[in-house]
């Protein structure tokens, strides 16, 4: 986890896509890129939450190193030359997206988040127009037991934003995960139906940060789920100030 900025940090100079930048050395590549309008794709990273580094969509190249690094968990350094867009990166990102789509049942046309979904936007942004691997077609149960919200595991990409926001911002830690690898699933409490959860405060932060139609409000029809994350930077600043 990246710590909150400490005083007296150095400022370093480096290049992103041949443009010169300078930033504090405790900033990550993705932070600098996004601040300067360079849209490095990402799914699990969300400003205001701890860094997870799981989706690998934000990988970038560092000149002189054969290894790709995830820009959300790598800090800028003096003299670094970073490339955020190359054929190799595009190919990797497309493949990651294809694997995500094949893993669960992301049928956009009937999804409440259709048109406002980060996964869908990323597929468009990265030019993913078909999936080359076979779909798993595994059916996951929908948990609609909560009065206000619903979780559809078929549309979950395991970004863990819900787990982090519930733990780090709301402080309830209702969400966690069970299982391993491809069989991982997010759970509420100790894998009880959401509606029966004792710890859930019903605040809905998890729904707002979820990038897809996995966590949604009850009563929404296709394409009607708009997520609003304006609360997050504010709340995380207030948390840091404590």
């Amino acid at each position, binding site marked *: 986890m990246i710590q909150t900025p400490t005083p007296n940090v150095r400022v370093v100079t480096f290049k992103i896509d041949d443009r010169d930048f300078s930033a504090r050395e405790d900033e990550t590549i993705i932070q600098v890129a996004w601040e300067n309008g360079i849209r490095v794709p990402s799914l699990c990273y969300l400003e205001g939450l701890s860094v997870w580094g799981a989706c690998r969509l934000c990988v970038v190249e560092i000149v002189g190193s054969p290894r790709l690094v995830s820009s959300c968990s790598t800090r800028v350094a003096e003299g670094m030359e970073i490339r955020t867009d190359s054929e190799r990166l595009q190919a990797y990102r497309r493949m990651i997206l294809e694997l995500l789509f094949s893993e669960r049942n992301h049928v956009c046309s*009937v*999804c*409440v988040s259709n048109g406002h979904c980060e996964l869908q936007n990323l597929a468009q942004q990265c030019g993913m127009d078909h999936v080359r691997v076979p779909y798993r077609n595994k059916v996951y149960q929908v948990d*609609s037991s909560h009065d206000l919200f619903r979780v559809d595991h078929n549309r979950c990409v395991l970004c863990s934003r819900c787990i982090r926001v519930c733990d780090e911002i709301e402080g309830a830690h209702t969400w966690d995960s069970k299982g391993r690898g491809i069989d991982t699933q997010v759970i509420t409490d100790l894998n009880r139906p959401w*509606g029966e959860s004792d710890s859930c405060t019903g605040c809905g932060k998890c729904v707002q940060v979820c990038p897809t139609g996995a966590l949604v409000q*009850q*009563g929404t*029809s*296709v394409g*009607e789920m708009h997520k609003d994350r304006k609360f997050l930077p504010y709340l995380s600043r207030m948390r840091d100030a404590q």
Partner: protein
Amino acid sequence: MSRTIAIEPVTRIEGHARITLQLNDEGRVDDARFHLTQFRGFEKFCEGRPYREMPALTARTCGICPVSHLLTSAKACDELLSVKIPPAAEKLRRVMNLAQLVQSHALSFFHLSSPDLLLGWDSDPARRNIFGVMTENPAMAKDGIRLRQIGQSIIEMLGGKKVHPNWAVPGGIAQPLSEETRDAMRKLLPEGLVIAKRTYAFYKKLIPQFAKEAETFGNFPTMFLSLVNAKGNLEHYDGWIRIKDAKGDIVEDMVPTDEYPRIIGEAVEPFSYMKFPYYKPHGYPRGIYRVGPLARLNNCNSCGTPFADVALAEFRTLQESQPVASSFHYHYARLVEIIYALESMDRLLRDPDIMATRIRARARSNRDEGIGIAEAPRGLLIHHYRIDDDGLMTWMNLIIATGHNNLAMNQGVKQVAQEYVDGSKLQEGMLNRVEAVIRCFDPCLSCASHAFGQMPIHVELRNAEGHLVDQLKRG
């Protein structure tokens, strides 16, 4: 030796089908079967999904009449919410349903059937299509394209998309109507009505030429099933079920749509994925009935709009006895309904109610069962859902228009084959007529193949003694 003639695939219908004709020792047609060999399994994969997804999900059953599924599904969901939707929402849903009727009937008449009607069943198959019509009668082809476009434009203006609009939602509709949209829709209607009346007049003059086809294209007594409104008039969105028998006597009337399971049974035949609905009290297959434009016009007391009522009176002179029994007259009925739809839309769009901004009743699921019924262009469409306490689908049944006509289509194919097939030689004209009789019903097979369960395709050829002489297995 008996022979089986297979016609595969049938062109110019929506979806895929295969027909087999069974010949007897004398080379005459003994039996005819219209097979549906596609499998989609919608009912199965909707299980476990939130009911609110159903309007959009079931609209994907079909690319031709998504609006019918969307509206019928939304109606079933309204029942799950136990709400009465606001009047503006109901009226606008009606407008969309009528626009769908115009575009679908226009597609059926002009694009799919007019090649047969204008160029003749014996004409060169390479020319017997909408392009042939364009050369033969360019004005008519243009009319057809324009009329369909008018229907589609209205759907698009309301729903924001030509196909698969996500506009009807449980409890009402998603957006209120703006004045510009209303005015733009209204502007299209007079032109549509002129085209519809012109086509109707043209077709009326043509009708005497088709005496033989009218005689043999699915001309047999059956019951007719459709919705009617409180006055017993033509109805497409709501209302009650009426059934008339072949003599025109009312067998069932004012049946609330929720009671459909009492009167409609569904039989399954091993040779088709399509179910065979029948009128329950008469048993299977005696309870054969037809749905769609022909049934609606036969069943209603009147249309309730001026020009359509004149056309309805003329429709009823097509045959001496009532109701009109020949499936050939589905074409005629479609033209009458286009006129009706355009007149009704105009009436609805003049109603100040439709501008209301209250367009949606909000509620959560309050019942565990919901039934939505409406008239799709091809006939009665039924969506029947059950949900659990959390609002997830536990069971669904769809009975689609083409399904209701399944028994009648099989019988129609047999009749036309018996008339036109002479065992010794097969002529293009005969094949065309077998296909054309199916097109009278305007079947939409992508909807019809939604039944669930795995069934391998297996075609058997049996001779007159019942011995297997050949077989074909697939899948």
